[in-house]
């Protein structure tokens, strides 16, 4: 590919395959690469990761996690598999249904369509991060009060999408609710409850709707 470009040269990085192998005493046949190469392009050094596993640091719900995954692993897969934070669900896996919704640096995102490697250094909030200790977030309580869930598989993504929506629109109109939550799909049909839950949460927990 690009390795024959004349301004590209490779050198071992600090957290490199060689030092990793040396440190761990593993034989060279083990297909583990925890580091990156550095190549020189356009007069600057750029780190090239993968295609094997690389060491990642993710900040999820205010906590730092380490993982070792290939660059092709999505944030959703890393959350569910490597971090065992299984609240975010894999459903469409193609940026359509919203079951994997997380908040990345304050914005709602489909974690199925973000690579774990590019999520490093960002503040990631998943549904697991909304509770304050054992206390439910007002949005979560509103989902319960208004029965905005049946099988519950879309619910975590919906709850997170509602959180991001209300952070941006603290006093929404019903029309804004419908427009602002259009990125999440439910199969059991819980939207009536979700609408009521969002309005309840917006009104500081004042019950209405389906309670």
């Amino acid at each position, binding site marked *: 590919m690009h390795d024959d470009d004349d301004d590209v040269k490779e050198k071992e990085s600090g957290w490199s395959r060689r030092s990793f192998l040396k440190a761990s005493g593993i034989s060279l046949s083990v297909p583990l690469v925890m580091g990156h190469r550095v190549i020189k392009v356009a007069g600057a050094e750029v780190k090239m990761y993968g295609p094997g596993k690389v060491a990642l640091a993710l900040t999820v719900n205010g906590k730092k996690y380490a993982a070792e995954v290939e660059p092709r692993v999505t944030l959703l897969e890393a959350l569910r598999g490597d971090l*065992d934070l299984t609240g975010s669900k894999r459903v469409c896996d193609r940026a359509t249904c919203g079951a994997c919704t997380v908040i990345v640096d304050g914005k709602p995102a489909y974690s199925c369509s973000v690579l774990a490697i590019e999520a490093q250094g960002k503040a990631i909030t998943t549904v697991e991060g909304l509770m304050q200790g054992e206390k439910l977030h007002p949005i979560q309580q509103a*989902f*319960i009060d208004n029965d905005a869930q049946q099988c519950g598989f879309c619910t975590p993504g919906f709850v997170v999408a509602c959180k991001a929506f209300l952070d941006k629109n603290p006093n929404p109109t019903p029309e804004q609710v419908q427009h602002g939550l259009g990125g999440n799909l439910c199969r059991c049909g819980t939207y009536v409850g979700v609408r009521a839950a969002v309005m309840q949460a917006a009104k500081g927990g004042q019950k209405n709707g389906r309670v």
Partner: protein
Amino acid sequence: MAEYKWPDADKRTLIGKRISRVDGPAKVSGKAKYSYDINPPGMLWGKMVRCPHPHAKITAIDTSAAEKMPGVKAVQIVQGVGAEISWMGASIVGVAAVDEPTAIDAARAIKVTYEKLPHMALDTDPKLAGEFAKPANANTAGDPDKAFSEADTVVEGFYGLTMITHCCLESHGSVMEWTDDKSVLAHLSTQAVSGSASNIARPLEIPAGNVTVKQDHVGGGFGSKFGPDDWDITAARLSKKAGGKPVKMFNERDAELMVAGARPSAYARVKVAVKKDGTLTGWQSDSWASGGLGGGGSPPLPYIFNIPNQKKQHTAIVNHVGPQRAWRAPGHPQGCLITMSALEDAAAAIKMDPLDFLLKNMDLAGARAEVYRDEFKIAADLIGWKKNWHERGDKTPGPIKRGLGLSCHTWGGGGHPSDCDLVVQPDGSIELKMATQDLGTGTRTTLMIVVADSLGLPLEAVKLSIGDSRLPASGGSGGSTTIAGVSSSARRASLDALDLIFAKAAPALDAKPEELEAVGGTVRVKNNPSKSMSWAQACAKLGAMPITVRGKNPGPGNLGSQGVGGVQMADVSVDVETGIIKINKIVAVQDCGLIIDLKTAESQVYGALIMGVSYALYEEKITDARNGRMLNPNMEFYKLAGIGDIGELVVHMMTGKGYDERGVIGLGEPPVVSPGAVISNAVANAIGVRVGTLPLTPDRVLAAIEKKGGNNARI
């Protein structure tokens, strides 16, 4: 001996109230573990190689490259050389590897070659299906020829529904693990915890008792998850080959939509004979349906209205588009759409309000006729039928036309067999154990309500264990059979437990056992509440040993029943320049006997209406006839209604006298039957012509307008 009945209305503390689901906190916090979420230590990832052709014979399989890949732990051929494959996406070879990327790479490295065979993917016309069309014998009742020749008006129409899929958000699959040489632990995504163990054991040739099925939560089933499926068995075989390590194998979304179940299509050319006064006298239908190798079953026609003179012919079309599975109220949405559309067209032809028309013929509905009459009256008030209904074709200027439609439906919903154990400890703590499952219908909540209300305790006092096949067996959750089955079983166990406790407590209260009642956390003498002891004190009389009471369904007493009726009405707007339909409002009036939890019961109906909007307007399993390929195996073009698409929904549950005393009846299926028909009828009322086929997409709506109600360009 207890009398097995439900408490009187004034004695109910929890039953029939609006109780929030007990697993709500787990679900909203992400703590609820679905089978897809199980990540045991050492788990391998399974992937399936699937057939890319609708009908083919396997001529060669080469797994050698995959087997040599680092990290690949097992390869399992599901269907070998020579096997005939009958749908695209069928399971061919499974692999298990240390992580998901490796498993994907291994699956890609497996080479399967096929000899293509002739296939059938069309279902739009039996004449095009050739040898794949399997006509059944005609079915005649009364004297249809006479009825049609003597009718004042004969109305003809064409109606249909395309194939749709279940699209469970949690796809089908499992985490399978051998805990020893002869024992399997199956974290299965299923509607049938109890029944699955033996179905897993059989192909693995181990005793059924050696299989443990576990499931805390399931992300949707809708009739499609009565597995195990071949991928689950494959996961177990891969696990065995990999030394028993857990193997996680869940369908990718495309496979889920292709092979994990579909609702059969149904189409019919219908003739209806009516008198000038609206009396229905004759029905003739030529129907066909497809849904995989078995063809599509004959929908119940005519639906609900047992028209005296009938002639019916049904043709099953065998096709290679993946297997059909029960889809919420099997057959009924199809029968309902076809019948209620034909009846509405008949009413329009004689310029009669369809509400008056159905009410006039209501006696043809048999046992539930009175219920339908009551429900139609309530629904009409809720939607303003008399004020807002107009004759066919909204005459308002401009492109937006508004219309009303109606329909009614029925379902059985009798309770399934269900055992439970109610354990009462000497300290008064109680646990109900039952190998049922909560599909999100509120089964957990209703069980706890029944036990708590029966024992005079708060909801929190009940510990509940479900979702484990080692618990007392309970039926699969299908056909709206769960609530009547499990609640009856739990009620019987609770009443029997009270008998035992009352017998021990009675001497201390200086009363006879039958004079006692359990109320408000106490056991006390009826009519003399001052003579009482706490629940814990009463249970202490049991001695050192807990008691275990087995509850059963069926059993003594009539705690459950079957047979419900519901009516729905819809108010829609249609943009006649674009063919786009918007739901303004849908009203559902539904009975289901005694309601255990009003909140989750209403949720069932809301959900059914939303699912109905989805299949009425958007959902369609689209297959390319030439290569048999499903073109929309994703959630982008397999469209589901979103939060902005459903309009205002109003649910009215029929409760109280005349309903409660029937006992508990299931609710999952009935309200999903009518939405297709009410929306189709409302659209016809708005635009003045019938759009024959669901989903009512813009192309179909515009074609119907252009042809003034003739057959659509593409059905």
